[in-house]
């Protein structure tokens, strides 16, 4: 009995256990769920130690070429504060680390969001309506510009959606819904291909191990 054989059987049984959830919650699903959650949690602990803690902190604190970099004690201390959450009297120290994480995250996101969600969109929308030359290009360009402007009107919160603003907002949300519909169909296709892949595994890799060839 090879390891491949064991792997195929484990994969098949766990797949079937997870699929059994489609019927209702049952012990097989519970087992697969707890195994999945436990193993992935353990995996991520080791992953973070080996790929984050050691290379990004320990190797900088104590470089391979020798010496000791005390500046790296600061992030180490902040990490220790996070662990101190388990000591009720000292748990408030973790707020310093948390505020640093949240503040840094918000600050870094500010420029990235402005760049990708605002300026890049504005830049891409400034087009000549006649760009492309033919009638279809005109129609396409008008839809793009109208969609962006009316979409922005929909996300205008300081004004009630009535009158002209309401009309523009309706156009905006309609265009958004059409885009969401297209995205939905596209993603469902991708999910179906995942299902086909897993079904193929069960039919053409697992069943043959029991002598059943389709």
């Amino acid at each position, binding site marked *: 009995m090879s390891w491949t054989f064991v792997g195929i059987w484990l994969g098949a049984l766990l797949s079937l256990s997870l699929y059994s959830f489609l019927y209702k919650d049952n012990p097989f699903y519970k087992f697969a769920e707890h195994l999945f959650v436990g193993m*992935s949690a353990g995996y991520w602990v080791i992953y973070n130690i080996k790929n984050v803690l050691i290379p990004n902190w320990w190797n900088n604190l104590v470089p391979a070429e020798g010496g000791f970099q005390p500046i790296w004690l600061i992030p180490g201390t902040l990490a220790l504060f996070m662990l101190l959450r388990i000591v009720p009297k000292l748990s408030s120290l973790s707020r310093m680390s948390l505020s640093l994480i949240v503040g840094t995250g918000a600050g870094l996101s500010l420029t990235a969001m*402005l760049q990708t969600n605002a300026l890049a969109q504005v*830049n891409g929308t*400034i087009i000549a309506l006649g760009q492309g030359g033919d009638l279809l290009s005109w129609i396409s360009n008008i839809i793009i510009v109208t969609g962006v402007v009316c979409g*922005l009107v929909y996300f205008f919160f300081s004004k*009630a959606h009535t009158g002209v603003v309401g009309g523009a907002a309706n156009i905006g949300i309609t265009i958004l819904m059409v885009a969401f519909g297209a995205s939905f169909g596209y*993603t469902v296709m991708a999910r179906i291909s995942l299902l086909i892949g897993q079904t193929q595994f069960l039919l053409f890799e697992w069943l043959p191990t029991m002598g059943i060839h389709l």
Partner: protein
Amino acid sequence: MRRMLFVLPLLIFAGVAYTQCAGCPEEELDGGCENPEPCGDCFILSLTAEDAPNDAGGNIEIAWTVATTDAIPDSMLLERLDSSGEWIPISTLSPIDGSKTDANLIDGSEYSYRIVPFYSGNAETASEAVSSIPQKQWMHTGRIGMLITLVIISIVIFYYIDQGKRGKDLYIRRIAGLTAVEDAVGRATEMGRPVLYIPGIMDMDDIQTIASMVILGRVAIKTAEYGSPLLVPTCRSVVMSVAQEIVKESYLQVGRPDAYNRESINYITDDQFGYAAGVDGIMVREKPAAIFMLGTFYAESLILAETGRSVGAIQIAGTAMPSQIPFFIAACDYTLIGEELFAASAYLSKEPKLLGSLRGQDMAKLFFMIVIVIGVLSATLGQVWEPVAKIADFLKTITTVE
């Protein structure tokens, strides 16, 4: 005939001279070619080395052009002069025009480069060496447009925050998904079932998770007031810690610290589908009456939303991930689309500071709408009257970010 005999040696001489100079650049052909084929250094027409612009230092950009001749080398070697005076190879190049960035250099030190062409494995005369000094730049010139925009938006936002603090009535339109928050928590209370809050799968450095945490604070106030159990399974340990702090604060705020249960805000796993499996298990076992899915979601969104629907919970979802919004719209009762998620905290709290910030953001949107309309009109008219197109070019320039 005698004249022809005189011309013949001249033709032969010219032919030989041309053959010998075939591998040389055009300008050398004009002045007479001194290098027989293979050409060596004359193959490299130009070599430049300049400090990489708009970077954090340590980079030099090297660019070269080569002659279009028959005598093309097999390969070329880019070399750098090291501190001991020796040329060390740093990259093998194809014998065509190109550029390369030499990284991890020391700022303020001078570095010299040259290119050595190889013919049949033999090194020929190297090009002239060029030098440059890497330096860091404090200002990224390609982002000045963004800086100006950011400053303008910030000023507008601060102005409206100030207005809000001064007590000015700042209107905010009705957002359906958020008016349902109280109803959802009330429903859970009546049914005696818990409220499940899922803050997405990203960490605290994600702006949507931050927005989700602010909304969690408001939802926690409601659950504390109504006395409903609140479950918050998280995908990241830091999110769990922040969620615990926020929920604790909310329970203290309404005078119910005794009802706060730290254990109900727990970490499941960092793994995307492991988390989805764990939350699905919680849904079918705890049977929450209200489920909030607010934050960053990826492929697990439909799995969670469908399971929530199957247990009969009222579901309020919100994300700014365009690819996941359709799934929430299809499977949830209310969906906050994109920026509605960020507006939610102001809407729920009605705090003047947050309302002022929201009004400021609206003004920023109005500014961008005006820029788009002016840009599109000028670009369209610019097709028939060129000077107008310069307005569109200017607007495109200031909105371009490198």
